[in-house]
C-alpha cells in the first residue's frame, strides 16, 4: 500500500508530540484537531478526484465561501436554512458545471478557468454581503446541530467527514463509474479510444468538486454560525498540497482519497501541534515548511524502497 509511508510519518509525529506535550494525546485535543480539518477534508475529497481526472481547481476557497454567503443571505431573507443550504449547494454545483463547460466544450485549461471562477466567486461573495460577514446567530438549533452538535461523544462534523471519505474512497477504488476517472486522467486519448466519454468524465469531476465545496461551505456556516465573504482565501494551495502529499499526481491518473486525507491530517496536525507547543509565530512557518519538506522526502524514500 502506497500510504504506509505517510502513516508511519504521522505515527512518528504523534509519538513525538505525546512526549513533547502531556495534552497532546487527550480526547479533547484529538477532537479539536479533527474538527480543524474535517470540513476542509470534504473539499480535499473533491479535489483529489478532480486531480485524478487530470484537472485542478483553484476556486475551492471562494466557492466554499460563496456557499456560506448564498445560504446565509437566503436564510436572512426568510428561507428556511435547509432549503437555503440546498440552493447554495446547487448554486456551487452550477459553478462547477460552468467551469466544466469551459474546460470541456471551449477547451480552456482548468487552471485558467478555475482561476477566473475563483475571482468571480469571491466577487460574488463581496457583492452579496457588501464585504461584511453575515451574522447567522439566529440559525435554528437543529441546523446548528450539523456543525456544532455531537452524536454521543463524536461531533456530527466528524461523522459527516468520515462518511464522505469512506464512501468516496470505496467508490473510487471499486466502482466502474469512478474507474473511468482514472482512465481519463491516466491517458485521455486512450480512454476515449476505450469508449469512455472523457469530456463527460472531466465535466462531472469538475462539477463534483464544486458541489463538495458547496457542501463544505454549508457545514462551515452551521459550525461558525456566520457567513464570511473572505473565508477560505488561500485554501486551494493547502487542499492541493494535501492531495499531492497523499500521492495524487498533478498530471492525473493516480491518487487515493485515503492518502489525500492522510495528507490533510499531516498538514493539520503539524499546525495544531505548533500551536499546542506555543512555538513562536515567527518560527512556525519555517518549522512547518521544513516538516512538510522532510515528510515528503521521507515518504518518497520509503515508497521507493518498497518498490
Amino acid at each position, binding site marked *: 500500500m502506497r500510504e504506509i509511508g505517510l502513516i508511519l510519518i504521522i505515527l512518528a509525529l504523534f509519538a513525538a508530540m505525546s512526549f513533547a*506535550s502531556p*495534552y*497532546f494525546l*487527550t480526547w*479533547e*485535543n484529538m477532537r*479539536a*484537531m479533527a*474538527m*480543524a480539518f474535517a*470540513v*476542509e477534508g470534504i473539499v480535499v475529497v473533491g479535489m483529489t478526484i478532480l486531480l485524478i481526472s487530470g484537472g485542478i481547481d483553484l476556486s475551492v476557497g471562494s466557492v466554499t465561501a460563496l456557499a456560506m454567503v448564498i445560504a446565509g443571505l437566503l436564510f436572512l431573507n426568510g428561507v428556511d436554512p435547509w432549503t437555503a443550504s440546498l440552493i447554495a449547494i446547487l448554486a456551487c454545483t452550477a459553478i462547477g458545471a460552468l467551469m466544466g463547460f469551459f474546460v470541456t466544450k471551449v477547451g480552456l485549461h482548468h487552471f485558467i478557468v478555475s482561476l477566473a471562477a475563483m475571482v468571480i466567486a469571491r466577487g460574488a461573495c*463581496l457583492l452579496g454581503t*457588501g*464585504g*461584511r*460577514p*453575515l*451574522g*447567522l*446567530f439566529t440559525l435554528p438549533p437543529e441546523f446548528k446541530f450539523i456543525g*456544532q452538535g455531537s452524536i454521543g461523544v463524536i461531533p456530527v462534523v466528524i461523522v459527516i467527514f468520515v462518511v464522505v471519505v469512506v464512501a468516496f474512497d470505496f467508490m473510487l477504488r471499486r466502482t466502474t463509474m469512478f474507474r473511468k476517472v482514472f482512465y481519463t486522467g491516466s491517458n485521455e486519448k486512450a480512454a476515449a479510444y476505450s469508449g469512455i466519454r472523457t469530456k463527460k468524465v472531466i465535466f462531472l469531476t469538475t462539477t463534483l468538486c464544486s458541489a463538495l465545496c458547496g457542501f463544505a461551505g454549508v457545514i*462551515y456556516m452551521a*459550525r*461558525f*454560525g*456566520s457567513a*464570511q*465573504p*473572505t*473565508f477560505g*482565501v488561500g485554501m486551494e494551495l493547502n487542499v492541493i498540497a494535501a492531495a499531492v502529499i497523499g500521492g495524487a499526481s498533478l498530471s492525473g491518473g493516480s491518487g487515493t482519497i485515503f492518502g489525500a486525507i492522510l495528507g490533510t491530517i499531516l498538514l*493539520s496536525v503539524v*499546525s*495544531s*501541534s505548533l*500551536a*499546542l*507547543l*506555543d512555538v*513562536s*509565530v*515567527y518560527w*512556525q512557518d519555517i518549522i512547518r515548511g521544513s516538516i512538510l519538506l522532510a515528510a515528503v522526502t521521507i515518504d518518497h524514500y520509503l515508497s521507493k524502497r518498497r518498490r
Partner: protein
Amino acid sequence: QAGFQCEPGETYVMNVMVSAHPYWVPVYQGFKQAAEAMGCETVFSGTPDYDIAKQIASFEQDLIKKPAGILLHPMQADPFIEPINRAIEGGVEIVTFAADSPNSNRTAYVTSDNVAEAKFAAEEIVKQVGDAGQYAVLENPGQSNHDLRVTAFISYMEENYPNMELVGRQATNQDSNAAYRATASILQANPELDAMWIPEAGSAEGAVAAVLEAKADVLIMHADVTPTTLEHIKAGNIHMALNPNQGIQGFMGFVATFMAAHSDMFDPFNDYKVSGYNPMQIPFVDNGFAVITKENADSFDLGVYMEGRDPT
C-alpha cells in the same frame, strides 16, 4: 462664498487597500457626510488586493484626475513617501488615516490610538479576572495596527501586572478556521487560561467557536467587530469589543484634507510663509474608540446603519 465650502466640482478621494473590507464602509460614510456638509464631491478608490504596487498605481491614477485632496490609507509607510510628495508638489493635498507615512509631507494623520486600545483591554481583563492569571493572544504579523495592538498589550501587561502570564501567542491572519485551530490547541495546553486578546474580529469568530466547544471559561476581548462577534457579545460569549470610531475617522479625515487644500484661509503664527510648507499641519488626530458590550451592541449593527445609505 463661505470659507468652508467647495467650488463646484471640487472632488476629494479616499484611497485604501483591500477596498472591499467592511472597515472602510463607515469611514467613507463619515468622509461623505463631511463632504456633503461642505458641498464637495467624493470618490472611493483603491485596490481590492493586498498589493502595494497596485495601491500605488491606483493612487497615481487618482492623481491624474487632479482631485483637490486625497485621504489615504497607505498600505506601507515608506513606499508612499515619493508618491505622496509628488502628489503634493502637483497640487493634490494628502492626509493619511489608520496607517501613516510619517516621513512624507502629508499634512495630517487621523487614527485611533492602538496603544490606548491595548491599555484599555489590559486594564479591563485585569479588572475581570484579577491581576494573576493566564492569557493568550492571536495575531497577524505584518499588519501594523494589529501588531501594535498586540505588542502594546503584552508590554503593558508585563510592566504593570507581572503575575499575568502570557501562555499562548499564535498567528491566525484573520482566518477563522486557523483561529479555531490555534485556540483549540492553546486551550488544550492551558486548561487554566483566563483571557484572550484578539486584535481583529475575523480571528475572534474562530476563537469563540473553539472556546464554546471546549466549554472553557475564558474571557474574550477583541478589537473591531463583525455581526457574528456582535451576536456573541450579546450572548455573553465575548466579553467586550473595542471598535475605532470609524465615522469620526472619516469625518475628521475629510475636514483635514479639505483644510489642507484650502490652507489660504489660515494664517498661523509661525514660519510657514518663509519655509513654504502647508500651514495646516496636524501631526495626529485621535478619533477615539467605542467600547461594545452586551448593553450597547445593538448600535453597532453595520447592516442597520447602512440601510438607505449609498455605500459608494
